[in-house]
C-alpha cells in the first residue's frame, strides 16, 4: 500500500475552502449591488413611487450636499455620542444595581417583582415623561438610551453573580475575607465575560432608545432627520438617515465585538 499524498490532499482541501469563500463573497456582493441597482431602476421606471421610495442616486446627491454643508456630520456626531453614553451608562448602572442586589439578598427578594414589571414594560413608552421631567435636551435622550438597557443588564448580570461557584467564596472566607473582598476577588472577575457580552446587546438597545428620544425631542440627530424628513415629505432624507444609522450601528457593534474578543482573550 502506498502512503496517501497528504500534502496534495491538504492543498486540495485548502483550495476547496477558498473556492467556497469566493462563492459566498460573490453572492453577498451580488445581493448588495442588485438591491441598489434594482432600487434605482424601479424608481426611475416608476415601478415604485419615487416620491416615497426615493432612489439611491437622490440619496447620494443629498449625502454629498449634506456632507459639504457639514450638517450630516454634526447630526451623526450627536447621535453617536448619545448612543455611546447611553449604552455605557446602561451597562455601568446595571452592573452597579446588580452589585447592590447581590450585596443584600433581602433587598433583591423585595425588589424582584418590580424588576419583572420594569423589564416587561416597553421602556420607550416612558419617553414623553422623561422629556417633560428632564427637558428636551441631550440628557433626556441619553437617559432614554440608558433606560432601555439598564434593567435587562441588571437582571442578566445579577444572575451571573449568583451563579459563581460558592466554593470560590469558601476559599476566600477561610482566609478571613469580608463580603466586599469576595465581590472584588471572585464575583466581579468571574462575571466579567457576562458584563462584556451585555455591552454588545446594549449597543443595539441604546440605538433604539436614542432614536426614539430624538423623534420625541425633534431637535437634532439622525432620529430628528428621520422625523423631519417624514413631516416635510422628504423621503430621500429619511432613507439617507436610515442608511447612515445602519452603517454606524454596525460599526459600533463590530467595535464592541472586537473589544470583547480582546478582553476575553487576555484573561
Amino acid at each position, binding site marked *: 500500500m502506498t502512503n496517501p499524498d497528504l500534502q496534495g490532499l491538504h492543498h486540495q482541501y485548502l483550495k476547496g475552502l477558498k473556492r467556497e469563500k469566493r462563492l459566498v463573497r460573490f453572492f453577498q456582493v451580488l445581493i448588495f449591488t442588485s438591491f441598489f441597482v434594482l432600487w434605482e431602476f424601479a424608481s426611475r421606471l416608476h415601478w415604485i413611487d419615487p416620491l416615497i421610495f426615493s432612489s439611491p442616486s437622490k440619496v447620494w446627491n443629498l449625502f454629498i450636499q449634506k456632507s459639504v454643508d457639514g450638517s450630516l456630520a454634526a447630526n451623526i456626531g450627536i447621535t453617536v455620542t448619545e448612543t455611546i453614553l447611553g449604552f455605557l451608562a446602561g451597562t455601568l448602572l446595571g452592573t452597579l444595581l446588580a452589585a447592590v442586589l447581590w450585596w443584600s439578598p433581602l433587598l433583591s427578594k423585595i425588589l424582584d417583582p418590580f424588576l419583572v414589571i420594569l423589564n416587561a414594560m416597553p421602556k420607550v413608552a416612558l419617553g414623553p415623561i422623561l422629556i417633560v421631567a428632564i427637558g428636551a435636551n441631550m440628557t433626556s435622550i441619553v437617559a432614554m438610551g440608558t433606560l432601555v438597557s439598564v434593567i435587562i443588564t441588571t437582571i442578566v448580570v445579577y444572575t451571573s453573580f449568583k451563579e459563581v461557584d460558592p*466554593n*470560590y467564596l*469558601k476559599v476566600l472566607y*477561610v*482566609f*478571613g475575607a469580608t463580603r466586599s473582598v469576595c465581590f472584588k*476577588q*471572585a464575583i466581579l*472577575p468571574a462575571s466579567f465575560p457576562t458584563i462584556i457580552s451585555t455591552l454588545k446587546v446594549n449597543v443595539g438597545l441604546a440605538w433604539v432608545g436614542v432614536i426614539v428620544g430624538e423623534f420625541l425631542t425633534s431637535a437634532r440627530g439622525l432620529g430628528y432627520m428621520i422625523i423631519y424628513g417624514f413631516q416635510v415629505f422628504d423621503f430621500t432624507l429619511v432613507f439617507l438617515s436610515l442608511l447612515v444609522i445602519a452603517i454606524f450601528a454596525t460599526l459600533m457593534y463590530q467595535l464592541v465585538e472586537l473589544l470583547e474578543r480582546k478582553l476575553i482573550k487576555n*484573561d
Partner: protein
Amino acid sequence: MDFLTIKNVHHTYFTKSSMTTALSDITLDVNEGEFISFLGPSGCGKTTLLSIIAGLIEPTSGTVQLENKTVKTSKNDIGYMLQQDYLFPWKTIEENILLGLKINGSLTSTTRDYSLQLLEKMGLAHVIHSSPKELSGGMRQRVALVRTLATEPKLLMLDEPFSALDFQTKLKLEDLVSTTLKNFNKTAILVTHDIGEAIAMSDRIILFSPSPGRIHKTFVIPNELKSLTPFHARNHPQYTELFQKIWKELESLDES
C-alpha cells in the same frame, strides 16, 4: 492540653421541604502535630464537620475550640483545601498562592519569599507566571496546597484532595503532602473515602457512619506504619491487615 477540641457537635440542615441531620453528637480531640483521617461513605457529614471546624457554618449545637479559642476568632490559623483546587482562573499562579496573605493583610517580602519557596519545593517554580488552565490536575492541586500552606495555618484540613486525580499522580502527591506536613509539624485532618489512603497517611482514622453522621469507630495506626512514607506503608504487611479490618467494618455499616 488538647490542640483541637470538638465537643458534642450536632448539626441539622433546614430547608423548605426537609430537615437533614448531618452530624450527631460528635466529640473528638486532636493533638498538635497529629494527622487524622475522616473515613466513611459519602453523605455522613464529613464535609459539614470540616466547614464547622473552619468556622464557615455554625453548628446547631456544640462547640469547637482551637487552642482554647472558638474557631470563629482564629480563622487565620486554619487552612482548608477543597476537593477541587478552585484556583482562580483569571489570576496567575503567583497571584493565586499569595491570595491568602493579601486578604489577611500579612503580605510582606518575608511571607512572599516563603510562599515562593513552598512553590519551589513542590517542583513548580517554573509555572509561577502561568495561568491555572495551563497546568495539569496534579500540578493545580499542588498549587492549591501551596496557597493553603502560604498563610502558615496551624491546622490544615483537606477534603478529598486527591479524589479527582489519576492513581499514579495520587500516590506521588500523597508522599509529597505527607512529608511536607511532617516537616512543618502541621496538624492535619484528611477527608477521604479511600481506605488505603487513610491508612497510609494518618496517625489515627475516625470512621463515620451515616444518617445521621456519627463517629463509629477509631483506629490507631501502628508506629511501624506511621514512620513510613505513604508509598512504602502500602507495601507493609500490617497495612493489609488493617485494610481488611476497616473494610469489614465498612461492610457492616452497609448492612445495618
